């Protein structure tokens, strides 16, 4: 954390948001059972206990994506981060966890820190993660083996880095959407929501 307790800079904000994504993605993967629960370990962060993966492949993938995302957050070129859960048998998209990111591009010009304490931001983040955990109660059960992917919506003029490629939006056919809480670092505002495939029984 480069930011002081009193204010927050663009860099600090990018780091905070990237950290939130790292924990949020881990939480979703654990809660939705995409990876077996024994591959997760318990850590304490944001004054709450969270699950972090120990799977080496997944870890390296997440660090790759999150570090790239941090760069983009710093450049204010990222618009959305989407976690897509796909059924492997039918290649059908079952869930979409969308995090809309609103960047205050004026923060790029003025390096003056914004007046918002990290504690309040972390409180907001905590409530978002709590809500993610709580969504398990209404989301339909994933009965088939599933895999996940992370899509990043960026500005069109961004140069695609190596190891990255363009993708489709992976929209769910006939979906139900639920808006979740949002949080803001006063530079980045993150609105979270989840869309899931409407089941016939529901």
């Amino acid at each position, binding site marked *: 954390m480069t930011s002081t307790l009193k204010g927050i800079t663009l860099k600090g904000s990018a780091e905070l948001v990237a950290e939130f994504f790292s924990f949020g993605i881990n939480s979703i993967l654990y809660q939705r059972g995409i990876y077996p629960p024994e591959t997760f370990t318990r850590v304490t962060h944001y004054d709450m206990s969270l699950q972090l993966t120990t799977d080496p*492949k*997944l870890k390296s*993938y997440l660090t*790759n*994506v999150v570090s*790239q995302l941090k760069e983009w957050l710093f450049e204010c070129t990222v*618009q*959305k981060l*989407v976690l*897509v859960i*796909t059924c*492997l048998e039918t*290649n059908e998209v079952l869930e*979409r966890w*969308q995090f*809309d990111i609103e960047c205050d591009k004026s923060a790029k010009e003025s390096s003056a820190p914004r007046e918002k304490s990290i504690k309040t931001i972390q409180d907001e983040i905590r409530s978002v993660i709590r809500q993610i955990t709580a969504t398990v109660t209404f989301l339909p059960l994933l009965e088939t*083996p599933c*895999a*996940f*992917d*992370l*899509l*990043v*919506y*960026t*500005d*069109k003029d*961004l140069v*695609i880095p190596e*190891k*990255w*490629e*363009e*993708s*489709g*939006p*992976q*929209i*769910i056919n006939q*979906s139900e*959407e639920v*808006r979740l809480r949002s949080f803001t670092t006063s530079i980045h505002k993150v609105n979270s*929501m989840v*869309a899931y495939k409407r089941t016939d029984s529901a």
Partner: protein
Amino acid sequence: MDLEDDTTVLTTLKSFNSFISRPEHPQRLCPPLQLLEAAEKVHSINRYLQLDQEKKQMELSHKRARYELEKAASDSARDFEVDRNQELLGKIKKLEERETEAAKNLSDQMEENHALRKNMEGLSKKMEEQDSRLNTANQTIISLKDEIRELKQKIQNQDLTISAQALENQELQEQRDLQRRKYQDVSQLCQSLQAAQSSCSEHVIKIKELERRLAFQEQDISIMKTVKSEVARVPDLEKELKRLRDDNDFLRESRENCSLLKEEVEGLRKKLERMEKTKEELVNMELEKEKLQAWENLGQSTGLNIRKPEDLSREVIQIQQREIALKEQNYILNSRVRSVERSESELRTELSQQRNKTLEEQKKRETQDALVRRLQKRVLLLTKERDGMRAILESYDSELAPSEYSPQLSKRLREAEDILQKTQNHNAEMEVSSVNAPGHFCLSKVELELETLKQQQASTAESSSLVTKEEVNILREKIEDLEAERQRLEEQNNILEMRLERHNLQGDYDPVKTQVLHFKMNPTAVAKQQRRLCARCRMEEPRPIHKMTPACTSDVIKIKLLCFLQTSGCVADLRKQMESSELRNQRLKEVFQRKIQEFRTVCYVLTGYQIDVTTENQYRLTSVYAEHMNDSLLFKKGSSGSMQLMETEFSKTLGEMVALHLHHQKSIPAFLSAVTLDLFSRQTTV
């Protein structure tokens, strides 16, 4: 007997008939001359006949006699035979009885035989056991013999060793004797040595004592020498002693003097100190005196009531307090000055601001005044308009009064007022715009507009009431339509916004502004690749399995084919393949069944046992020669592949065979053949 009688009667009858039939012929044929001859002849013939008859009678009697004889003979013979028969029957019965007895005996014998056989078997078993024991005993004997031999060898060896040891012993004894002798010598030597040693020690003690004495003597000698020298020094010492005593007395006196002198010195010193102190005090006193004089002078010079230093200090303190108070006042004043300066500067700024404001206000006021003037003009114009409108309306009212359409009138009035209001609003707007827009151009424009409006109003006022009504209605409708359209558009807008929101929620994006990126090696791609690989593996798998195990169940093939179908599209080909494989399976099943049946019958015929599988790992054997349907043997296959006989009703009756063949010989085939032989013999003997 009766039969005999009948035959005689028959013969007589025959002869009589023949007799009757014969004589008639000559009587009819012969003439009377010849009658004599004929008579004679007849007579002779008669006689002949008589004779013949007699003869026949004789023969008959003979025959009878013979017959009787024969009969008697046969009777006797028959009687004899009957008797004999009876005898024979009795004999037969006896013989049968004997036979039955013999059969009983035989069966007994058989049983005995069985028993004996069993005994024999038992004995043979015992024999075998004894043989085995004997063998073991022989083996033990041999082993024991070997042991004995070994032991003998050992004994010999030991004898040898004993003799060797005895020899050694002798040698050792000899050596011992030698040693003993030596020992004696040595002990003697030892004794002598000990004696020598004791004498030696005595001598040593003596020597020591002597040495000690010598040392004592030497000491004594030295003492003596010193004593002698001291004795020689005694007179000198005495002299010295006297001298010293004198010195002592002198010194004692001098010491006493010295102490006295010291006391005196100390007393003097104390006196001196006291004197010095008094001197110092004196100086101080003088100084104080001077000070006091100065004070007195000060008191006189200053005119204050200072008699004592306390007064002065009080004064000083008072002055200091006054000074502090003055300083405080000074500070306060300074701060006040500063604050006043600050407030002054603030006020100055405020003043400048206020001035600016006042200037602005003045400007505003001027503009306002201008506005007010304009507005007043306008108000005047408007009032005039209003008056004109009212006059028009009154004129209308006066026109319409007879028809008494007051509600319509009031409505119209309201409409007209609304229009007025609108125009006024418009005016106000125009004024605002005129205020914002510089120059009088706008104003003039507004005024022009106003005039045009006025003209319009005037024209409208002048136009007939029907026209205005229609226009108003049309306008109202238009307004209503526009309102409706507006609402519709608003709703549409809302709907579109909602849709946009929904699309946004669903993850839609504007491809002009946004691009979607993802990491190439993401988990989904990896998982899909793995699945594709697996599917390919599965596609390649089924064929070799077909070849290797054609008898594998059709279900497995179906599952694999389904997997295959999912991945590829050539359905018909696969279906054909499936059908052919199923057909093949069917045929194989049939062939298997036939072959198995054949095999079972062959087994049954060749071994004499029908083998059935009751449950898993349990086999039931039923012999061809079984006396009952239920007589069967049960075998169970153990985990290590060994077969074990299970107890059944039938196997309970085969205790001996089980003991012999299974427990002793441990051969199931032997046991089975023994059972077969037993059952076979039972079937054939009964």
